């Protein structure tokens, strides 16, 4: 219990520090906020272009696809606000050797690096994405059923675990190869494919996006759950997949720490 309280306090302190850092430079704070909203608007453009010419893509109508995009944007705002800043923090720490100080603290290193940095203005992005979701259901003419919403929220948790586990795997690679800036770009670029329902992809790509880089589990399945279209088998697959990825990530992280070479003085 004491341990839990310690970690809760740590999380609060890390978030407070990120907020203090964010407001330290006022101009930057407002600029980032405005940019967040701009990028959300940009996200919608490809969808609007495609659906201006046809009624449905791979069985998905415009409002249904909009649910996927909304969901994707919610996840992306979490990624940009809560995951990528910490990723950059670790990658830089590995390269410069300042990760030493993290490893010398009496708390779980994975927890510390995962909560190292947040970008608070991404909350705007998050709220904007929720607005897109609400608009999509408005276009559909009905709200998600309570049961579907519950499954959707549970899958949101699974999606976060998946996203986070994939990110830990990327960071673990940085312990070995040191410079992974491009790897994080690759990660973000692949994640971008999650804005499309999985049915849009065919063959190997579909398999990869379901099992290797489980975009389907992250965006399509939760969106299907909200739309009341997800089978319980798929929900189970998503849950199991999330747990499996988390276990693999933790294992790889522990192994990777051993390979940390620090940087010379």
């Amino acid at each position: 219990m004491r341990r839990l309280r310690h970690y809760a306090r740590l999380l609060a302190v890390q978030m407070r520090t990120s907020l203090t850092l964010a407001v330290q430079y006022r101009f930057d704070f407002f600029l980032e906020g405005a940019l967040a909203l701009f990028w959300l608007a940009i996200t919608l453009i490809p969808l609007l272009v495609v659906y201006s010419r046809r009624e449905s893509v791979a069985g998905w109508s415009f409002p249904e696809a909009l649910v996927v995009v909304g969901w994707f944007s919610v996840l992306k705002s979490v990624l940009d606000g809560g995951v990528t800043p910490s990723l950059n923090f670790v990658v830089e720490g590995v390269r410069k050797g300042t990760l030493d100080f993290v490893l010398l603290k009496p708390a779980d290193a994975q927890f510390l690096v995962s909560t190292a940095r947040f970008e608070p203005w991404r909350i705007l992005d998050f709220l904007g994405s929720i607005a897109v979701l609400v608009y999509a259901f408005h276009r559909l003419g009905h709200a998600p059923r309570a049961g579907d919403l519950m499954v959707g929220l549970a899958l949101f948790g699974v999606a976060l675990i998946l996203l986070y586990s994939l990110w830990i795997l990327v960071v673990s690679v940085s312990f070995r190869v040191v410079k992974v800036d491009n790897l994080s770009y690759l990660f973000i670029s692949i994640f971008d494919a999650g804005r499309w329902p999985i049915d849009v992809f065919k063959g190997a790509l579909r398999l990869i996006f379901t099992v290797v880089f489980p975009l389907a589990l992250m965006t399509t399945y939760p969106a299907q759950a909200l739309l009341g279209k997800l089978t319980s088998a798929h929900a189970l697959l998503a849950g199991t997949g999330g747990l499996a990825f988390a276990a693999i990530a933790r294992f790889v992280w522990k192994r990777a720490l051993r390979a940390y070479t620090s940087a010379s003085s």
Partner: protein
Amino acid sequence: MIRARKLCKTYRVHRRPPGLLEALRSVVRRRYEEVRALCDVSFDIAPGERVGFLGPNGAGKTTALKILSGLLYPTSGSVTVGDFVPQDRRTEFLHMITLVMGQKQQLLWDLPPAETFAMNRALFDLPRDEADATQKELVDLLEIGPLIGKPTRQLSLGERMKCELVAALLHRPRVLFLDEPTIGLDVSMQARVRDFIRRYNESTGATVLLTSHYMEDVAALCPRVIVIDKGHLVYDGDLRTLARRIRPEKRITMHFSSLPAPGELDRLGNCVARSELQATLAVPAAQVTEAVRAALGRLPISDISVEDPPLEEIMQEFLGGQPANGGVRSA
């Protein structure tokens, strides 16, 4: 307190000759080389001791400190600090130690040091009043009260190092690993940091392990030194004993009121430095009294002093001509 047995650490490093062609070739085929940073290093350090790690750049000093603090895994050999294996990173162990690195900082660059202190207080789960009392004590000792509210990036190097020390000592560690804590500081700041470390050691009984570019740091702080050269431990013991063994002589520095007669100096001893009205002689320790008496009788002396040879010189000779710790001398 610290026990190292047959410690070895090997790094695998990518090597290639200079030039674009070689760089392109290394993209396809990489050549790796094994570099032995430490080789069969064993030592024991008792609680409360102050020990200096000496050796040329790249000798393996920092690697040793990083293994002792649990950051690096030794390739072979064993190490314990207190009752702990550092690499296990046990909470009790991490509460017991600290590592200060002169070349890296834990202070948050854009925020005042007080924010880092608050963060460390949470990380080490320190009771607020206890942490506040320690912080106040350290801040007063280092005289940095007005600084801890200023953004770190606006502080000078010396001011930052003092704040680093507060951040590193807030949890009152019993073992201090200090990797070049005075690097880049001016002479008076070096002396104050040294003085602070000694006072901390004396008041808390903490064990101190120090590497430094400045021989004065080591001479002033550490009665015992461990010399590492090319990964091997080449000396472990008293610094003065080492000095006497390598250079069993004293330096007599004389200032003259007028030019001494030619040949007089050479009769007294080996002249190692000479300018018009000043000369330094190297004289065997046993003959110092006699040499001083003779000098005072025969030469127009306005001032005279007897000292040990500079430590840098001793280390240089000991390590076979390599400058000790990069050969950087403090002014």
